């Protein structure tokens, strides 16, 4: 009996190669395709063309075109994140707590999964066909109300137009993130507060909102970063005419429009900082909110 069990032992030393095989390729991949490329740009942002240290590239970001591009990008991202967070929250709330027919929730969740991934170039096409100059909704408004929205200053290729378009993937993303959080609001909390005489308003202000706010703020930041890094929709809608930061960087990579490759690195550094901060805050807030949402 003892002699047969000895055979298990030799498999032990072979554990080491597997551990290496599992972790080393992943780390090499992460270095080659995530950390080093980003590091290259970050270091390049602080270098002169001959390789010595400088802050001039960062200072050179202070040009009207670049400042305007950052501003417009931040404005569109913030507006679409705020709108997406608000409307997505209302829809998630309606789906979870609205006592609607049962089929609505799974339909909504499936659709949100699709729509949050329906971004990029095709989304631009869809909105051109809807709210473009010869779009269906534009034509309907003209024929029903006799108002041509384009004559009143609306333009799909603008801040407002891009924000409305971005909402198409921002709202569903918010629904996907917030539904589990709203699910986590326990019925007992509501009942307990009602027994203690709280009104609906008091319940929301003193119980539900304090529990949900990390999720809400965190989702807003995630949506913000999501819109900030987006380019394909805007590019397909407007070509290179809209001056947002991703399109400026795209043009810079294509043809060095800023006439200074190191200024391009500084541009990229600015983007990493902005998306990094908002994503970092999202991850921190999510870990806070997970204490309640189980």
């Amino acid at each position: 009996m003892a002699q047969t069990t000895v055979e298990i032992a030799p498999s032990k030393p072979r554990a080491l190669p597997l551990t290496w095989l599992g972790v080393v390729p992943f780390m090499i991949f992460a270095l080659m395709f995530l950390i080093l490329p980003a590091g290259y740009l970050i270091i390049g942002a602080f270098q002169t063309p001959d390789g010595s240290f400088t802050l001039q590239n960062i200072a050179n970001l202070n040009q009207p075109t670049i400042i305007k591009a950052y501003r417009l990008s931040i404005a569109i991202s913030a507006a679409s994140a705020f709108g997406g967070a608000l409307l997505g929250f209302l829809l998630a709330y309606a789906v979870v707590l609205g006592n609607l027919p049962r089929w609505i929730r799974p339909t909504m969740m499936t659709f949100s999964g699709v729509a949050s991934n329906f971004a990029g170039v095709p989304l631009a096409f869809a909105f051109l066909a809807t709210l473009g100059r010869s779009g269906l909704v534009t034509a309907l408004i003209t024929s029903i109300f006799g108002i041509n929205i384009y004559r009143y200053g609306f333009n799909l290729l603008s801040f407002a137009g891009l924000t409305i378009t971005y909402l198409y993937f921002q709202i569903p993303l918010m629904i996907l993130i917030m539904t589990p959080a709203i699910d986590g609001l326990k019925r007992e909390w509501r009942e307990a507060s009602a027994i203690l005489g709280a009104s609906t308003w008091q319940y929301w202000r003193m119980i539900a909102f304090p529990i949900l706010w990390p999720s809400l703020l965190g989702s807003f930041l995630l949506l913000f970063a999501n819109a900030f890094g987006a380019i394909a929709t805007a590019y397909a809608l407007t070509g290179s005419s809209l001056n947002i930061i991703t399109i400026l960087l795209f043009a810079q990579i294509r043809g060095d429009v800023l006439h200074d490759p190191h200024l391009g690195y500084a541009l990229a550094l600015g983007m990493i900082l902005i998306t990094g901060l908002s994503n970092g805050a999202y991850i921190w807030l999510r870990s806070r909110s997970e204490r309640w949402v189980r």
Partner: protein
Amino acid sequence: MRARIGPWIAIIVGMIYFLVPLIATFEFSLRMKRGEYSFEAYRIVLGDPNFQASFTYSALIAVAAIIFGVLLVVPTAYVVQLKLPRLRPLVEFITLLPLVIPAIVLVFGYLRMYNSSSWIPLTNSVRGTDFLLTCAYVTLALPYMYRAVDTGLRAIDVRTLTEAAQSLGSSWPRILFQVILPNVRVAVLSGAFLTFAIVIGEFTMASLLNRPAFGPYLQLIGANRAYEPAALAIIAFIITWACMGLIQLFGGGRQNAARR
């Protein structure tokens, strides 16, 4: 409790916002022939050799990225789960990085690091650039693929399965590919379809790496044609829907089974 009016208003307004662009796009895509509705735009798009070539190319790169991604992520998630839980925060942080660094910034870095005058001149050859694009897509999909596989591994008893296979004399490759992988195949499949949905119409990376992928093709048609883009948007929407539907189909049955 009764259903109040507020939730209904929210749902109806939401439905209008989400459905109207789809209806408008579909209606627009049918208007190619003057005075009648027809599928002319679809016929032209589907018959376009460039459509077929770019779609096939993107589908191939997507499949390559899925295979590469699975081979990269499954052993890592497995080892982290079983042997090196200390590494979990680091690995999770790395898998979140593609959400932090915008795609356009990543590809900018690739173009600087792997250009013709660098140590690894991947962009010198067509095959090299294809490989670079595949790796770029593995990176883009990394957060989703890792999350999916990790969730799958947590749902099964990795340790017992491994020890059982070990005591029956399995080699490590065999444990990974014939014991662990089949047990997380639902998770792997949902990661795979999500990867496909993300990658198939991707524009920025393919365009900057100058590869004839579906995303740049879409953009080109959008800049030059009127009705075909609407037809393409509907086709893209159906592809995305199919990917999500397949995830639900494979994942849904399992979730229900687990709940019971």
